[in-house]
């Protein structure tokens, strides 16, 4: 049943239903209402979890790592500078193969200081070994938490995951959302069964020293698990759809792609604005479509190549910048690689950084630029302030 609530509160409800045993997060900016609501749930007895208060995001994820290593289902949430402060632990969590799920309310990185949305924070940790899901609306980002836990905890996966959604644009938006009930989620997501755990009676060590004879293979194993997680996430998304009626088996979702000349590729909430812009352009006879990326890591290269086959140009809308790179955005080169040999033009447009609003007319302008073969640029620069 649909009800209306703030995006952050919808995620808090989803997390409650996942029954984490330990939650640790730093409660001050940059943070969302998610952990505030979870703290209330724990205090009110609505969530039977240990809520560990800490003095920084570094400590928050460190506490989560320890709790996960001790065999608990664990949750955290952060954003922006908070995620970057965690970075060392982010890599360690993946290296120790702890299936922690963390919500990332995507926000810009300083300096200059910005509290506003873009996706630079999670993109910056692209290579950390956490899978990354991106939600388009409050429903999708809420549901992705259930799917993330289910896939992450499989013993053939054992990887942590980010569930990413645009800060403010989704975290602070009220809109209708269906929150599943506890009984159905309990059936979908049974209690976490650790593959191994810290136990004083049967001691083991995790994250130990790896000499050059072993380190290489450890990294290989993480990559292999990440590649396997594509199927695990797809299966978890399919099973979710069978129970709850919303299917998430696809890592990429096409919109009006059947006869598209120009295709957008994008992640997150901007996909909604792009769809509305596409409908308007289609009314004017402009054949434009969208391929939405739900799963960014593992990168769904084959699915993207299939979805984009037949277009003449691809416009990759990037809410990030890979400073000093040829295409400017981080996603573009991977799209280019997916389409290698096809002759399809791929152009990145860095847009929406630090909360710059992206309107339908901007989408139209980017489609026009892609059709002309112009791109790999910062879109919409205010020349007068340069």
């Amino acid at each position: 049943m649909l009800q209306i609530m703030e995006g952050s509160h919808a995620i808090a409800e989803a997390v409650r239903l996942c029954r984490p045993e330990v939650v640790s997060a730093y409660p001050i900016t940059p943070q969302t209402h998610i952990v505030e609501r979870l703290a209330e749930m724990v205090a009110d007895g609505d969530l039977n979890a240990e809520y560990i208060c800490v003095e920084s995001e570094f400590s928050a994820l460190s506490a989560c790592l320890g709790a996960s290593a001790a065999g608990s289902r664990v949750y955290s949430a952060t954003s922006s500078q908070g995620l970057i402060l965690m970075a060392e632990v982010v890599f360690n969590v993946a290296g120790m193969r702890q299936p922690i799920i963390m919500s990332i309310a995507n926000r810009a990185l300083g300096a200059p200081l910005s509290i506003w949305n873009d996706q630079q924070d999670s993109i910056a940790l692209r290579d950390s070994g956490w899978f990354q899901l991106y939600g388009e609306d409050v429903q999708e980002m809420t549901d992705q938490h259930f799917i993330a836990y289910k896939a992450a905890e499989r013993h053939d996966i054992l990887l942590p995951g980010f569930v990413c959604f645009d800060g403010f644009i989704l975290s602070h938006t009220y809109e209708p959302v269906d929150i599943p009930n506890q009984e159905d989620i309990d059936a979908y997501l049974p209690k976490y069964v650790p593959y191994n755990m810290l136990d004083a009676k049967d001691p083991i060590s995790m994250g130990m020293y790896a000499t050059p004879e072993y380190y290489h293979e450890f990294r290989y194993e993480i990559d292999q698990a990440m590649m396997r997680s594509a199927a695990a996430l797809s299966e978890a998304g399919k099973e979710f759809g069978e129970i709850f009626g919303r299917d998430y088996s696809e890592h990429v979702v096409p919109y009006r792609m059947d006869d598209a000349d120009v295709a957008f590729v994008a992640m997150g909430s901007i996909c909604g604005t792009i769809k509305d812009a596409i409908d308007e352009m289609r009314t004017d006879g402009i054949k434009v479509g969208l391929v939405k990326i739900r799963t960014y890591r593992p990168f769904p290269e084959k699915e993207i190549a299939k979805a984009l086959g037949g277009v003449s140009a691809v416009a990759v809308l990037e809410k990030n910048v890979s400073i000093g790179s040829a295409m400017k955005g981080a996603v573009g080169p991977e799209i280019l690689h997916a389409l290698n040999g096809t002759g399809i033009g791929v152009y990145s447009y860095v847009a929406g950084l630090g909360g710059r609003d992206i309107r339908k007319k901007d989408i139209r302008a980017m489609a026009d630029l892609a059709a002309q073969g112009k791109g790999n640029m910062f879109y919409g620069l205010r020349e007068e302030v340069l």
Partner: protein
Amino acid sequence: MGILLRELRIHGRGGQGSVTAAELIATAAFKSGVYSQAFPAFGVERRGAPVQAFVRFSDEKIRLRSQIYEPDYIVVQDSSLIADINVFGGMKEGGIALVNTEKDTVPGVPPGIKLIIIDATSVALEVLGLPITNTTLMGAFAAATGEIELPALEEALRERFAGSLAEKNIAAARRAYEMVRGDA
């Protein structure tokens, strides 16, 4: 699709509850049977600084996420804002501007815009004992536009506020609703 979409922009000053107003109007609209979306303009949050909050209403699921530049409706919580910023900017022909002021006239209203004046500050002072006008203006908005139904607004207010505070805010909203209905 666009034709079914209606948009509201709320102008206020930090501390006047514009974001809460947007959230509660969206909640009431959803309870009235349409899809709705509320979000703030993510500005620098300071008491007294001009702030904006937005609401969309549609008969279909809402996908658009940009801010609102061409509103069907505006609500102005503080008429002193009119001298500082173009609150009427981009308003659609035939749109409704709901302005809180104790004066009889409002400067700068573009042609083709229906102006509704309400002295929400006096209503709020009388009913709530505080010059917090957001809930009063919600009642006025319901009457002026028909986008939200009064019982749905009352339900939204009861969910947000506890006990007598909810009832006081409902009384303020109802008073404004009746005042605007009397005018219309």
